């Protein structure tokens, strides 16, 4: 079936992405996800010092550099059999938590909200009623009159800046009703105004989270202290107190604004519980180490779920990962485990090079046990939710069940959907921000007890290692082979590689492609529903 839906470029993401889909009778029947950029990080790393990879690989992603840095340092530590000391473990947890909170706030408000919230409709809101609604929804208030006036000023100025063309070819000022049909017209103008006010406030809050990253890592993006062996950051008492103060402020905002906003908007999009679930397989390497630093004891543990076989979690084995390249623009061998992986890009381009029937992406197609697997907050929350032996199980289950109850959802399998993916991210944000307060206290106590060592020296040897960790958007693996004291080969399997993967050797679609298939699209020329699916993965 020829494609009749194209989104290129997909905006409000990190990097460059193209979506093609074929819709029939208002439903997507087939879809292709194309990553349209190659930079060559893995090749650039060859021959360099192993500890330099920390500084270079974080430049893969300006939104999640912290996670790439941690995965890189962990790959070196795994190769050299270095266990980072307790103090470094806690500081890395705090640094990574700030990264997650930053990224999740940025995603929900700055990147995704404009698919669910219509800023033009906010102009119709009654300010007094907006306060009443905010109180009723249990979310925080803002100077709603000022926000409305500011929007009005922008509209009256005639230059919509970043909102230009935001309504898929509809002019929201001359045709407000039609523009609102892109959203749920039943969602009151006052809720739109609340969301716009918090959209602006979120800019401050993501910056607050980034300031914590800067406190520990020197700057954000690209913090500099989680070096292989531990951390270069020295947490004196003032700094620990400052961390606690700042995390408390963030936690307060996440629980009093972000979560109530999510629960207030979700009822207007309950239809999104019925589609967008995707491939049904979920993989997490886990993130936030506990004292013993094993993958399945992590605060958010490692696990693999194949929902077709039941809602059970198995312990993942990295040896079962293979990357296929049949539908990509790479010429290196297909089906390699990333520890033995290679990356060679093709060297000539013609008009037929992009062909969804053949080759169409710079993303390889990673498969776990020959299956496509979704990674990200939904995968992590499901794994924790279904891991009764993990210490985090209770807090995750309580958080998820609480939200399900508020939304009147009785069947937890409905979480495997577009709305479930969106909600999982925000609920995870609340769970993590709660943990940060505990970790600050644990760090203060460890300092007193003298168990807060920061660095474990090591000697570089010719070994191989894997750094398995999570970025906010999903499972992340860095794979290093050291030879002659230098990097012989280096492979990175990012969350986007998993979720945005093209078809594999057997022609099985990647998780985002699978999630698009079956998604209703009311108007193929304005495929906002498809855009929601794509952004729900936080690519």
């Amino acid at each position, binding site marked *: 079936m020829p494609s009749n839906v194209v989104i290129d470029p997909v905006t409000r993401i990190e990097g460059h992405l193209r979506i093609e889909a074929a819709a029939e009778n208002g439903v997507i029947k087939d879809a292709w996800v194309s990553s349209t950029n190659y930079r*060559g990080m893995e090749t*650039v790393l060859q021959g360099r010092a192993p500890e330099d990879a920390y500084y270079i690989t974080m430049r893969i992603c300006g939104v999640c550099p912290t996670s790439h840095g941690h995965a890189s340092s962990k790959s070196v530590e795994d190769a050299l059999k270095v266990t980072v000391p307790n103090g470094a473990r806690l500081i890395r947890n705090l640094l990574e938590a700030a990264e997650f909170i930053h990224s999740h706030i940025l995603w929900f408000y700055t990147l995704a909200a*404009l698919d669910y919230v219509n800023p033009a409709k906010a102009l119709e809101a009654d300010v007094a009623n907006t306060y009443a609604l905010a109180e009723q929804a249990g979310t925080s208030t803002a*100077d709603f009159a000022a926000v409305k006036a500011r929007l009005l000023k922008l509209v009256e100025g005639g230059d919509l*800046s970043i909102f230009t063309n935001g309504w898929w070819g509809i002019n929201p000022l001359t045709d407000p009703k039609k523009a609102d049909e892109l959203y749920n017209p039943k969602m009151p103008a006052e809720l739109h105004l609340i969301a716009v006010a918090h959209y602006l406030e979120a800019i401050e809050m993501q910056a607050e989270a980034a*300031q914590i990253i800067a*406190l520990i890592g020197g700057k954000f*993006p*690209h913090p500099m202290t989680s070096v292989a062996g531990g951390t270069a950051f020295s947490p004196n008492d003032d700094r620990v107190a400052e961390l606690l103060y700042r995390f408390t402020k963030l936690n307060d905002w996440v629980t009093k604004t972000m979560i109530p906003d999510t629960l207030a908007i979700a009822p207007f999009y309950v239809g999104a519980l019925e589609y967008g679930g995707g491939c049904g397989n979920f993989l997490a390497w886990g993130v936030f180490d506990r004292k013993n630093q094993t993958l399945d004891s992590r605060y958010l543990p490692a696990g693999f779920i194949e929902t077709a076989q039941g809602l059970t979690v198995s312990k993942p084995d990295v040896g079962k990962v293979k990357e296929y390249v049949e539908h990509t623009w790479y010429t290196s061998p297909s089906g390699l485990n990333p520890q033995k992986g290679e990356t060679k890009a093709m060297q000539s381009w013609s008009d037929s090079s992009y062909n969804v029937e053949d080759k169409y992406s710079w993303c390889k197609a990673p498969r776990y046990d020959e299956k496509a697997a979704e990674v990200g907050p939904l995968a992590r929350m499901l794994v924790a939710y279904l891991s009764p032996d993990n210490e985090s199980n209770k807090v995750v289950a309580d958080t998820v069940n609480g939200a399900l109850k508020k939304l009147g959802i009785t069947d937890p399998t409905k979480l495997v959907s577009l709305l479930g993916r969106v909600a999982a991210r925000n609920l995870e944000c609340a769970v993590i921000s709660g943990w940060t307060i505990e970790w600050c206290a644990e760090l203060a106590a460890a300092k007193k007890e003298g168990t807060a060592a920061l660095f474990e020296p090591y000697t570089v040897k010719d070994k191989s290692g894997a750094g398995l960790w999570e970025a906010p958007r999903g499972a992340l693996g860095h794979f290093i082979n050291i030879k002659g004291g230098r990097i012989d080969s280096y492979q990175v399997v990012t969350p986007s590689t998993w979720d945005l993967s093209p078809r594999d050797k057997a022609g099985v679609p990647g998780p985002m492609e699978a999630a698009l298939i079956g998604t209703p699209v009311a108007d193929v020329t304005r495929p906002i529903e498809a855009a929601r699916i794509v952004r729900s993965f936080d690519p």
Partner: protein
Amino acid sequence: MAEIHKEVYGMAVATDLYERLAAHGITRRDFLKFCGTLAAVMGLSQTAVPQIAAAVGEAAGSGLYPALWINGAACTGCTESIAQATQPNVADIVLDILSLPQMETVMMASGEYAEKAGEEYAAANKGKYILICEGAVTEMLDGNVLRIAEKPYVEILQHYAEGAAAIVAVGSCAVDGGWVRAYPNPAKATGVKAYLDANISNPKKRPPVVNLPGCPVNPLEIIAVVVNVLLTGDLTKILKDPVKELNLDRQNRPKYLYGSTIHDNCERRGHFENGEFVYQFGGQAEADNYCLYAMGCKGPQTYRHCSKLRWNNNMSWCVASGGPCIGCGNFNWVDNNTPFRQRMRRIGAGVIGGPGGLGIAKAGAIVGGVVVVGIGAHALASKATHRIGKNSTLKNEEMKTYDARKLKKKGGSADA
């Protein structure tokens, strides 16, 4: 519109901006302090503070300034960096100061409507808009290695560049290819200026390019350039002599942002002079904020203002948090600064040049500067450098012993 004005040191400032800043907890005093930092960085006297405040206030109160932001082979870190600006924050910038109908990471429109937003705006504002470029220009596969809306990015860059009044290349990738161009440069990356010089139809008509290297760019660096433009006030005046009006050096960098090294203003400089170095992370020396030079810090050879501007609303900067500088503001920074952890060596012609870098002739002047300003004045550390320069395989213990022996002769102590 900003009709009411308040007097600040005799200058009128739109109250709109103050009200907005107050709404997110920033007082007028904070804002003036921020303008003071800008004045200091821009090499202006503190008497320029009210002028800066007035210029920003006016800009926030009048119509939006046309600008387009395009992303090449980027990690989006420079966009992220701008999102960390607080006074004004990114919402103030995109809603009150700059019109940015094209900024992929935040714009509302998607797909063909996103493409049209930029396209139509560029046509309507031909010759008037500022083009902000993030990310490397990748030439592999005739530029098809990065395609946006079915076109190679290089075509999009060239198209928008030809209609721009001026171009700002933000971050090392846009300036010279950044890490993407590091050996063996698999995606054939280069910088915006180099690409346009080689490909634009009439090179004499190329709009001026302001280079802001660094990985990432510091939001204050962009704001400083905007303030520079606002203070000059007249775009035609700037375009007539951009090098003078924007105070650019030979690499098109504003001199006031890249005229001194990290080391010049480093808060750990005192420890450098005392010979007090960190030799391993995590120890007492690190807790005491000793100098990171022995850990490979590239501060002395890196021309950037991190130690003064700091990062994330003045929170910290790499060295303050314990991370040695890796010289991300240098040209071809990955090739020229790795191994990052090796104590600086090879001080001499060529260290900053290197393959595809600045070239020996240009580097000579800079290296001279490093030696004189950064190290030459300090006999102790300078000698240590030369010693290590001859034998870069010295281990931690040997370095410590060497530094201690040298220091003893000078009558100090090296307790690390």
